[in-house]
């Protein structure tokens, strides 16, 4: 299979990881999606020189995306949509959650809970839980030891505690009384 096909196969998962990492939400994010696109193009350009197997290609993509995301954060070039994450990153983890605006909907609460994690904890959690990488693979992507990875996982899970589901339970919407009234 050609490199382009492999990249196209990886694109949706990579997009999922980027959105979760950047915004904590599954919805489109210009920042996250641009990041993915740039990673794909960069890999496509260097593909002939890299000559990676598909498994290694995935690790390479996630490594690149994670690094570029960190660099962007460090460079302070976050856009408005990633404002919450920047705030969290600079403050450092769940202890900064109190600085975040109070989320309203379950979706916002879910995103806020993810973004309230420290960046390195979020990376570890998302790589293992969301992307299904083994501990060895995730540790390789993050360039840390397996022990450090598990420590970060443990911290993330402890901080999340009971993470709220993003979607509210489906109840029939209560009909609101009309504001229009007959005035005699």
């Amino acid at each position, binding site marked *: 299979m050609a490199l*382009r*096909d492999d*990249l*196209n196969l990886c*694109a*949706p*998962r990579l*997009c*999922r990881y980027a*959105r*979760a990492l950047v915004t904590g939400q*599954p919805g*489109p994010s*210009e920042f996250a*999606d*641009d*990041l993915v*696109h*740039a*990673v*794909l*193009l*960069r890999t*496509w*350009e*260097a*593909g002939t020189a890299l000559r990676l197997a598909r498994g290694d290609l995935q690790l390479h993509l996630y490594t690149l995306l994670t*690094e*570029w995301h*960190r*660099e*962007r954060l*460090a*460079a302070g*070039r976050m856009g408005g949509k990633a404002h919450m994450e920047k705030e969290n990153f600079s403050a450092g983890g769940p202890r900064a959650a109190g600085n975040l605006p109070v989320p309203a909907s379950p979706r916002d609460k*879910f995103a806020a809970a*993810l973004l309230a994690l420290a960046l390195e904890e979020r990376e570890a*959690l*998302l790589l*293992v*839980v*969301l992307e299904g990488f*083994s*501990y060895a693979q995730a540790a390789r992507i993050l360039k840390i030891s397996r*022990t450090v990875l*598990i420590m970060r*996982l*443990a911290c993330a*899970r402890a901080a*999340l*505690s*009971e*993470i*709220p*589901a*993003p*979607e509210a339970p489906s109840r029939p919407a209560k009909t609101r009384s009309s504001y229009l009234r007959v005035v005699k």
Partner: protein
Amino acid sequence: MRGHGPLVSEAELHGFVDGDMDRGRREAVQTFLAASPGDAARVERWRRQNETIRAAFAPVETGPLPWSLPLAPGAEGVAATGHAAGGQAEASGSHAWRARWFAWLIGLSFACGALLAASAAYLAGRVNAPEAAPPSSEGPTPVGMNDNTFDTRAMLALRAFEPPPAAVRLSPNSDGPEQDTGAPILPNLPVEGLKLAGVRAMPGEQGQMLCLVYASPDEANIALCVEKAGDPGETVPRVSDNFPSGAIYWRQKGAKYALVGAIPEARLRSLADRVRAQVEAFDGR
């Protein structure tokens, strides 16, 4: 971690939830959790976390991507450049990629447009080349016709109006190798007030069609067009019924004539009669 069963570490509990564990140890962890409700509840909470996270982002994998796939073959080499100076430059790399991509598209569009224009000019040259020649039957004019050829053809056109050596006028049997007696005659409209505004040559069924365009201060423009007819027969004038842009046409002396203009039919017929009479009386003098 110490429980009621075998010893299980915290890392093994995480590995148990994440499926990153040897099969042999998995049974040991299950035994441990069965005997340790507190740890079992914790592990269950982690499992719910995992399910919540996966469910939340499941639509992304199956949903539409913000860019088109597959990756365009010409897309390489763009994003990487933006990242060359480290990740900082990459912050705007994607936007730079878009800008360059659009610039490339615009450049390609201009190139295609230029190519099309050149092709159209070439084809127009091929089509219009015979129109530059006088209405003779000498065949198509070469595209690379030089000035000498053009001069010769111009002189031939003039000699067609010179009196023939014999009494036969405009006859197909007239000799004179350089005289094109089959060339259609374009008479001048003998009407007061009409002024020749220009001549237009257009592709016709039998070579080219020439039109004399007359302008009038009181009326709309009138065009008298002629082209060589396929057969020598003559016809009476016929009027097309799409007035006010009316047309009247007929065949006369081996040529097809048409008089068109947004003028009343009676006026058009009157002009046509005068043209017909002039063509009929034409003797080249």
